[in-house]
């Protein structure tokens, strides 16, 4: 099986936020929740670059490690998913996540968190594939349809890539060799404890 990863080529990202919009639309993400966002570092300075960031579907995922009810699971494609029927909304995964991926709808009293929501790599959840129940809880399941996440599929500059880690890494390497520069695969060191050597 493939080892699914995201790779954002920040030398190509133009901060158009189409990935953010595509994600929200495809998955009917509730108001106030952002599964994906574009972060611009060094804004307005030399070396400004934008990186589209979502759940990186880490190896040895911290969220799964700290979950008090063990609601996370990893698919055969190494996609980190969670079961909203088991989630209690404690917020621990948000404490542990290096990318700030887990998001919570605000429900109930105080800072009451609802069931956690995060990027599913457009792979739905534990429900039956492509059912209404799955869509309502987790959004689209494009993986079950043989498609890649929409954010990457519709990236106009092909900055954001999704797919098997080895393949997207080789595409990135080729780009870097051709154009002569690259700033590396954002989040890979943190998420996968490896980087793309170019």
């Amino acid at each position, binding site marked *: 099986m493939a080892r699914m990863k995201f790779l954002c080529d920040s030398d190509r990202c133009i901060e158009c936020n189409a990935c953010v919009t595509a994600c929200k639309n495809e998955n009917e993400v509730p108001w106030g929740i952002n599964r994906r966002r574009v972060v611009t570092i060094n804004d307005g300075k030399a070396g400004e670059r934008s990186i589209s960031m979502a759940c990186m579907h880490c190896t040895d995922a*911290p969220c799964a490690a700290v979950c008090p*009810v063990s609601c996370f699971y990893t698919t055969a494609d190494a996609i980190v998913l969670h079961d909203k029927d088991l989630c209690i909304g404690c*917020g621990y995964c948000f404490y*542990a996540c290096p990318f700030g991926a887990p998001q919570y709808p605000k429900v109930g009293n*105080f800072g009451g968190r609802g069931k956690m929501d995060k990027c599913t790599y457009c792979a739905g959840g534990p429900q039956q594939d492509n059912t209404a129940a799955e869509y309502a809880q987790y959004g689209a399941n494009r993986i079950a349809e043989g498609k890649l996440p929409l954010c990457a599929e519709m990236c106009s500059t092909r900055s954001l890539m999704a797919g098997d880690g080895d393949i997207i890494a080789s595409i990135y390497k080729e780009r870097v060799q051709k154009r*002569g520069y690259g700033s590396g695969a954002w989040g*890979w060191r943190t998420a996968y404890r490896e980087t793309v050597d170019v």
Partner: protein
Amino acid sequence: MSMLRSTLIALAAAAPLLGAPALAQAPAAEAPPAAAPAAEAPPAPAQPQAPAPAQPQTGAQPQAPADAGAAARTTTDPQVRQALPPASQTQQQLPQDDGAGPPQGSSEVQAPVPEVQSAGETGQRQVPNSADPEQPTGTPAAPQPQVAPTPVQPIPAPPPLGNRNLSAEELELQSALTGRRITGIVSIPDDKLAVLVQPEGRDWRAFRNSTMMWIGGVAILGVLAVLALFFLVRGRIRMRHGPSGRTMQRFNFLERSLHWLTASTFIVLALSGLNLVYGRHLLRPVIGPEAFTTVSELGKIAHNFLAFPFTLGVLGLLALWVRDNIPNKLDWVWLKNGGGFIGDAHPQAGRFNGGQKAVFWITVLGGGAVAASGFLLMFPFFVLNIEGQQIGHMLHSVLSMLMIAAMLAHIYIGSLGMEGAFSAMGSGKVDYNWAREHHSMWVDDELKRAHESVRPEPATRPAGAD
């Protein structure tokens, strides 16, 4: 250094234009002196009256005229624009706000290689950038890449400016080593998401999954082991002279109510808290994931809501008992005698002995700190950011674990461990012999007060009544 760099880039960008392999092969050390003067050129005095027609001929000259800026401005004239050949039109459309005054690489003006293109074609590019009205004077303009009019041999370009920054891996490694976050800006209305990588989560994970479990496990199981051992060695501490059958009031209804309010909420808070730490290892395999989620979710709700009555109870106890819990010299004596637990000594004590005072202050200070940290965690991002929440959670859990351990000892000695102790908080009355044994000074005080209340005041007797 940045100037040298920019001039180098300017050179490299201009090289294909000039069609100069000789320049590309030239040693790098020679290149900067050729280009630097142009980049540092002082602002040329503007001469708006300069005749425009002279402009196209300036191209072949190695030194641009001083009035080039004015000449460049005049090219905004549509007639002159039309007169320019297409090649220079494309030059004007390079990423520059005003198409008329391109501050293109000034270095080519001083290129040591003869110009290969016609003066008319290159005329537009001969304007020194320091004379550009759009540029601040005295600072070298950012070099602009240029489109080569004729294809030339490709020259490997140095990386662009943007790449001089640290790469993703370097930044992430630095962030992991220093514990600093990589942050930027986001255009969505959630500033929290501007954090790209936050390495602190790793430490928090290690703490939660290992350190905290050890602290709690050792503290709680350790106290339980000590209590079990104590029970085996010492047994139940009985009243030395047996119950007298006479009782005296120790805690009134308000005191008992507040005690049990605090105690009952504490037990639920402690169990629901422990469930989040140990439940998935101990309870989940036993009752299954769905039932465990139900228990945990109810526990979470209870934990959030019962925090308020618990805090109320702690504050009430503080108000009621703080007067009798000020540590004094007697507590030191009590401690030196092992509190009566070890050996046969029976230290004197007032209303509360040293151990009870310790329990009081653990409850008030520990409970207060746990409650404060808990309330801060209950409102995420109200006061604490993500790092603050991680630290707050660590404090909350460690203090809670220690409090649970301390309260286990309190529960033991108040029930199983000592004969006659429970009724103080049960019915509120204790046996006279128990009170004499453990709180002799309090009994003396109570008796004195009781005698005073029943003995008639001497002054109230009518004179001459005897």
